[in-house]
């Protein structure tokens, strides 16, 4: 089905081809019918092996035939001694190898080989590893072979170091070897396991137990309730805020807990910060230097540009902000197909930097205006914000996660390209919204605002929706509480 070139040929060539295929087809059909007849008759004999061998050599994806073959082999096992069984399955391995030469990517072939090794009284894993070596020398990207190799390595106890050396050799002879790099990503952690996540060390004056907070539960929490295990927060009645520290995988997290108006509602504001050791920092610094040297030689190399951006972020996101923005600009020019990706990634980094610059987690006014933002993210870190300015960006929508901003009172989002206000629903404190010069086209685009019961001021000037018939009366019906409406 793949890689079959359509070749134009003469009428005579067409006729010859047609006759040839008709002959092949007849042979195939008669062999297939014979096999299926035998199987229906419950015959599990040598002839079955011969017939299936014929068919499978050129049709290894005909899975039912492998099944039948296995049934025959299992049957033959019952009447043979161990050494005969060994021979039986060794000859099966020869057969499979011949099939693999024809089609090295047949799921059926590789699975059957694995199965045979479970039936062999004495599997020869050295030979199997050799097969993998040969197969990979012909096609280093054959994932069937890599997967089979992993089984062989596991069964025969080949060391991680040995396999790493194997990948070294492959990469050394052909640098473009994603399969080898991938394999390394699974081998290295086995050689250098990460230390187990420790329980939180408390450095704040507040007494807390050691919580194992699963951040994804927090981030998915659209309301203000914080899902902490019992006993992890103690004696909150006298505290205005609590700080909890913990380690999650490779990063340190801080969590500042604030009491809200109701004692049982805790607002969570998480500032995730990755703290690098001195050793890690100097390694990354050296990498950054190398990459910068490479960039001088190849200023249009997108991989280099992107890697530099990521290294700078790991080392000093705020310090490198200007350079980062310049590199993103270059990236969009040298790799225009992915400019949407780069714009979104840059937006994410700018939002992260703005959050990092927040001096206190208590900051309530948050400005992201004029940053070429194409997407919003980390909204879960802005739960306490009362005023947000998103004006003069390239936003297309206010996404569902926007509804997390439960403290929001004022939203400025002028001069974007916003068509959808999905996320602007059930915001209980929202009083004022400015959406001048956007792309709100239909009345239905504004429906979610009806759930924001404190909304009184709404500016929709410069949106296509003003052309809707009877828009004034329609809007006053949809949003009766809005007193100051600008169209």
């Amino acid at each position, binding site marked *: *089905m*793949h*890689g*079959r*070139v*359509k070749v134009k040929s003469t009428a005579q060539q067409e006729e010859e081809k047609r006759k040839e*295929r*008709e002959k*092949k*087809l007849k042979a*195939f*059909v008669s062999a*297939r019918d014979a096999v*299926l007849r035998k199987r*229906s008759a419950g015959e599990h004999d040598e002839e079955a092996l011969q017939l299936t061998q014929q068919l499978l050599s050129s*049709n290894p*994806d*005909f*899975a*039912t035939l*492998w*099944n039948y073959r*296995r049934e025959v082999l299992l049957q033959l096992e019952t009447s043979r001694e161990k050494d005969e069984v060994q021979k039986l399955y060794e000859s099966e391995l020869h057969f499979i190898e011949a099939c693999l030469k024809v089609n090295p990517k047949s*799921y059926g072939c590789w*699975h059957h080989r694995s*199965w045979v090794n479970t039936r062999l009284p004495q599997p020869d894993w050295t030979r199997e590893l050799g097969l993998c070596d040969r197969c990979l020398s012909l096609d280093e*990207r054959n*994932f069937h072979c*890599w*997967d089979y190799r*992993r089984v062989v390595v596991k069964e025969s106890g080949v060391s991680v170091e040995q396999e790493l050396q194997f990948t070294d050799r492959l990469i050394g002879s052909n*640098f*473009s070897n*994603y*399969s080898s790099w*991938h*394999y390394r*990503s*699974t081998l290295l952690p086995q050689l250098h396991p990460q230390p187990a996540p420790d329980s939180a060390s408390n450095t704040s004056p507040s007494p807390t137990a050691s919580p194992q907070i699963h951040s*994804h539960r927090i981030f*998915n929490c659209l309301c203000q309730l914080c899902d902490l295990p019992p006993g992890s927060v103690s004696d909150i009645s006298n505290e205005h805020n609590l700080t909890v520290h913990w380690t999650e995988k490779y990063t340190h997290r801080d969590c500042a807990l604030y009491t809200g108006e109701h004692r049982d509602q805790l607002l969570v504001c998480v500032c995730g910060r990755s703290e690098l050791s001195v050793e890690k920092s100097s390694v990354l610094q050296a990498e950054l230097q190398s990459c910068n040297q490479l960039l001088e030689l190849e200023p249009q190399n997108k991989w280099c540009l992107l890697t530099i951006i990521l290294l700078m972020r790991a080392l000093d996101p705020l310090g490198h902000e200007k350079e980062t923005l310049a590199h993103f600009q270059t990236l969009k020019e040298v790799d*225009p*197909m*992915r400019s*949407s*990706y780069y714009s*979104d*990634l840059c937006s*994410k980094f700018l939002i992260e930097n703005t959050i990092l610059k927040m001096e206190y987690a208590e900051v309530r006014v948050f400005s992201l205006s004029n940053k070429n933002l194409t997407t919003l993210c980390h909204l879960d870190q802005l739960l306490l914000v009362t005023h947000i300015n998103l004006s003069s960006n390239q936003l297309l929508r206010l*996404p*569902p996660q926007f509804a997390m901003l439960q403290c929001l009172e004022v939203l400025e989002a002028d001069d974007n390209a916003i068509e959808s206000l*999905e996320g602007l629903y059930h915001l209980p404190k929202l009083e004022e919204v400015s959406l001048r010069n956007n792309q709100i086209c239909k009345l239905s685009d504004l429906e979610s605002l009806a759930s924001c019961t404190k909304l009184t001021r709404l500016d929709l000037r410069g949106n296509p929706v003003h052309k809707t018939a009877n828009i004034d009366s329609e809007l006053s019906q949809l949003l009766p509480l809005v007193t100051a409406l600008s169209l």
Partner: protein
Amino acid sequence: MGTQVKDVIIKPDAPNTLLLDKHADYIAAYGSKKDDYEYTLSEYLRMSGIYWGLTVMDLMGQLSRMNREEIIEFIKSCQHDCGGISASIGHDPHLLYTLSAVQILSLYDSINVIDVEKVVDYVKGLQQEDGSFAGDKWGEIDTRFSFCAVATLALLGKLDEINMDKAVEFVLSCMNFDGGFGCRPDSESHAGQIYCCTGFLSITGQLHKVNADLLGWWLCERQLPSGGLNGRPEKLPDVCYSWWVLASLKIIGRIHWIDKAKLRSFILACQDEETGGFADRPGDMVDPFHTLFGVAGLSLLGDEQIKPVNPVFCMPEDVLQRVGLQPDLLS
């Protein structure tokens, strides 16, 4: 300097308009010549072949041209005693063809012509202790089969019959450093597997476990200068990846990260103006498999001449609405 980028060059005279009628004619006629060589040799996947043909016809609004009664009878005679369904008569049952059969019957709103309870038993019985699914009783494990299992049960409204937690745990154990997924734990990321795993996670409501930004980047890097998509780094583009990659991007909310216009040009260039149908790449031989995924890819890109397609099930959205299935997508 540097390694050559594997890609194709699209010739200036390649097709650049959508030839929907030609494709409908191609599919309608496919398989009518029962003595065709390719057709006979692909009997081992016939059930999937029928699903590909019917789905693309339905997407083009031409389902009525196919032989509903004959197909339904065929499916009935492919259900085995164990409940599983085979690719064709005389072949052995397998999860792949069980899913295809259930998809076809959903298109035809005729699920009950088969023994649904037995299908559920068959699927349940293939779940292993580690949560994975074997393809059949012979034990091959692959995340493709995790997808087949939950997609089948979702279409039958029976998702609660398997160990969901374990099933999810297994699929997540196949997540790699690049955010992608392979066949089994430690297998290399591959667009086909990624489609199966993101589809699985969508059906099971676990998409938040995906690193959407990381995976989205890996997926958008599949786009080559020709505009076509490959299935993993340094491979040639193929129209079927317009489905596996694109649907995955849609599921994780990052479809805008590829250049849609360039991809559309590539897909259109894979059409065969003479015979109808799509090939894997421009100039190659066409087949129903690539025809479905070319058309489905164009639908995901927003072509209004084609019915909207669901990115998880690769079936028309209106069919899923009728069944009552609206799997989550990330935004």
